[in-house]
């Protein structure tokens, strides 16, 4: 193998794949990235056996071939090479080494045989559809904060992606919850997604996928079976195993009869919560929302450092009500609400509360109150 390419192109592709590689591995080859040259492109592939990311980048290939070298070392080297440089890559010593040259720098990396590199077989992916990168980013960004990290309930460690009927239309919905709060975001069901199984996409896959795509109109091809999912963008392909579990019947915890509504200006509310919560230095970070006609008083107390209150003008009609929340959870959600106004639908101080962007029924957040 012998090829030449731009520093920027190599760095970008490498940055996308290297984070899949775990820092510590018991199987040496899993620390490596597969470097593969066909007639016009260089393809880099990394895997942790559950997740496999591969990205191609244009290169001037003199001789095709493939090898594997330590991913993090290669990334460190390329990161430190000067911008705009040309990089030359060549296998040496009968494939036992890979030599990288750039200007007057020369690096020799030990290789492992490419035949030993684990190949993830996606198997047959019977369901396939196309989704714009913008929609996919929206599904991910607005739900991933609620993914659980608790390992005993492993089936909550990802985003539940499934087809469902909502308001008479078919939608593709993403749901994540950690047992304290829940986020549910949907987009119109893409063509071809009818009949797809509900799947739980693991947290790490979500994180890696998000690095590969940006909010553009590019179309992402999604293919899935009950055990695997594949996302293919223009140059990059990500294949991942799915979490083998049953996502809880989340619709049961989304209340439907919450009769009290509170509309707040989202930015002002979020800033006020942030200020008031500065007083509570313990981990519970509780803030109290006391609402009367037209006014909302946010308050927090800490036996240690004192208390804080802030008054906001809001749109609220109904009996006076007090309810407590974890301020961090409130902030997490208000950050996801892009619009001007957020709407709370509340039943009482002990039942789940719904938060939504006003006028946007495509995303709803459910939050369990805190009793203070």
């Amino acid at each position: 193998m012998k090829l030449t390419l731009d520093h920027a192109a190599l760095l970008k592709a490498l940055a996308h794949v290297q984070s899949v590689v775990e820092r510590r591995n018991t199987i040496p080859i899993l620390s490596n990235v597969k470097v593969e040259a066909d007639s016009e492109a260089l393809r880099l592939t990394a895997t942790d056996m559950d997740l496999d990311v591969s990205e191609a980048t244009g290169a001037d290939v003199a001789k095709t071939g493939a090898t594997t070298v330590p991913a993090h070392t290669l990334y460190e080297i390329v990161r430190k090479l000067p911008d705009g440089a040309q990089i030359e890559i060549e296998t040496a010593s009968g494939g036992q080494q890979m030599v990288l040259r750039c200007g007057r720098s020369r690096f020799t990396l030990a290789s492992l045989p490419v035949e030993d590199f684990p190949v993830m077989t996606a198997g047959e992916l019977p369901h396939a559809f196309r989704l714009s990168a913008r929609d996919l980013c929206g599904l991910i960004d607005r739900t991933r904060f609620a993914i659980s990290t608790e390992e005993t309930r492993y089936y909550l460690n990802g985003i539940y992606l499934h087809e469902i009927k909502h308001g008479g239309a078919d939608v593709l919905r993403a749901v994540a919850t950690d047992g304290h709060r829940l986020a549910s975001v949907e987009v119109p069901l893409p063509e071809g997604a009818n009949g797809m199984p509900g799947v739980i996409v693991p947290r790490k896959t979500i994180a890696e996928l998000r690095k590969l795509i940006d909010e553009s109109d590019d179309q992402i091809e999604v293919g899935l079976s009950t055990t695997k999912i594949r996302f293919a963008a223009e140059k990059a392909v990500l294949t991942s195993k799915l979490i083998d579990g049953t996502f809880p019947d989340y619709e049961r915890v989304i209340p439907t009869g919450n009769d009290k509504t509170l509309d707040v200006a989202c930015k002002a509310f979020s800033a006020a919560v942030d200020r008031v919560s500065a007083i509570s230095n313990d981990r519970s970070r509780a803030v109290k929302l006391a609402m009367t006609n037209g006014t909302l008083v946010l308050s927090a107390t800490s036996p240690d450092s004192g208390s804080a209150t802030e008054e906001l003008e809001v749109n609220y009609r109904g009996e006076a009500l007090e309810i407590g929340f974890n301020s961090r959870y409130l902030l997490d959600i208000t950050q996801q609400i892009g619009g001007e106004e957020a709407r709370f639908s509340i039943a009482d101080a002990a039942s789940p509360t719904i938060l939504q962007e006003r006028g946007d029924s495509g995303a709803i957040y459910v939050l369990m109150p805190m009793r203070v």
Partner: protein
Amino acid sequence: MIVRKLPDSVVNRIAAGEVVERPASVVKELVENSIDAGASAIQVVIRDGGRALISVADDGCGMARDDLCLAVERHATSKLADETLSRIGTFGFRGEALPSIAAVSRLSIATRQRDQDSGWALDVDGGHKGEAKPSGQADGTRVEARDLFFATPARLKFLKAAATETRHAVEAVQRLAMAHPEVGFFVGDGDRPLLNLPALRGDAEDARLRRLSKILGPDFARSAVAVAGERDGVRLGGFAGLPTLNRRVATMQFLFVNGRPVRDRLLYGAIRGAYQGLLPSDRHPMAVLFVDAAPEDVDVNVHPTKAEVRFRDAALVRGLIVSTLRHALAGTAQRTAVPVSMPAAAAVTARPPADWRAPLAPRARDRVATPSFPGLREPLAPYDLAPSAPTADWPVPPPGEEAADPEQPVLPLGLARAQLHSTYIIAETADGIVLVDQHAAHERLTQERLKRELAAGVPARQGLLIPEVIELDEGRIAALEARAAEFEAIGMVIERFGAGAVIVREVPALLGTVEVSALIRDLADELVDDDAHLSLNERLEKVIATMACHHSVRAGRTLSVSEMNALLREMEATPFSGQCSHGRPTYVELSLAEIEKLFGRR
């Protein structure tokens, strides 16, 4: 198949299996008999780990001829005067020990009552009783068991090495001796003495402490606090080691109920609860506790060797132990275990005199690694000498004036004189110096403050959007349900969820996102095991400890004299300030006497 009644010899051997587990059990049973007989001196001889010979001789009340012959019969005892089992004031009552021992060994008993002219001797060989013969025995009784387990070869095979069995036997005597300082104990292996505890007269508490110091070592006596409490007729006495005196295993906890050594999970759990937050979970305190209750409130007839007991009101006993220990330990804020300062002092004295020539000058060989640039070096100023920086808050009078001023409040931790290495505070007290680890001390103060705040407020509870259902067995569910109100008070809401499961609806907000099912399982196990629920508190304390650590003055921060004094005064006012949350001391004390010893003035 034919059902037949087992012959007596077999019945006795089966009973022996329960009572006589190993030579130490024989020693225990016989020494208990001697104590029940009112002996004031007991001599034990153990040869070849008890296999060859176990002999116990006492100067107790002895037995008459007829009693002697009856004593080796099963269920014959002098210790139950009537037929009630509810008032047991003696060690024995089952009437099983002697026949059981007799069934598995060659037993000979010689005895003489105090007012009788002659004594009697009796041999029992593997359960076959001989004739009582006159004997020249002195006052009291001597029981000798030879060739133990010769009749039950299976048991013989399971014995450990002679040294191990001897050690177990000595430990059995030690346990009994702790509860009976008024009795002298001697244990030998026929050649040399293994244990020699002379009888101690005088004040009971003092005698007890001296006996304990003889058995557990002088460290224990120096680092133990007397414990005394009473509730509804149940009394608790004994000594508890300071948290800084801790061990890796819990074998140094000795529990006595009405003078009887027991290994009872309820009581061990109570000790663990009392020391919670003072020790890391893998370290165990030392303690010797005596619970005295009216005989009818304790059921000792639970276990063949009486190692376990049952209390009529277990919660009362548990509460008594926890609160009494806590109270006793809280009074020791100004004490750390003495041994801490001793090795330090020893290290100083052990230094060869040659090193003392210039103790303050940096020695060349300590500094090899550091290239030195004398020209750039700042003048060495390691001591923030207090007298040079008196402040309005804490005027520091020149030494000598303190004693003269009768108005001067007593300051157990003294006045701060200097800070060393920006880490340790040196304070001068009336009779010595105190060296404080500023981080450890402040961490403990912060932790106690956070705990007080938490206790004062109502804990915030985070509701669970998806309540967690945990499958458990009925025993564990019942145990959790019984304490549900207690859990709710700390923010955990648990309810029964049909058969075989509980549902958790709310968790303490302080814990953040916890693995609820693991926590509940731990709690349930603890409730079932020793009726304690430490996990939840432990988790909360861990959060508090982490917060305390982050909010405390670190080592390496320079403190002014007034800051140092403020820290010392707060330590004096805070319970448990003598050790940090990991059980390490926050300060050590070096008395003038110890300093004088270092310089050979004494």
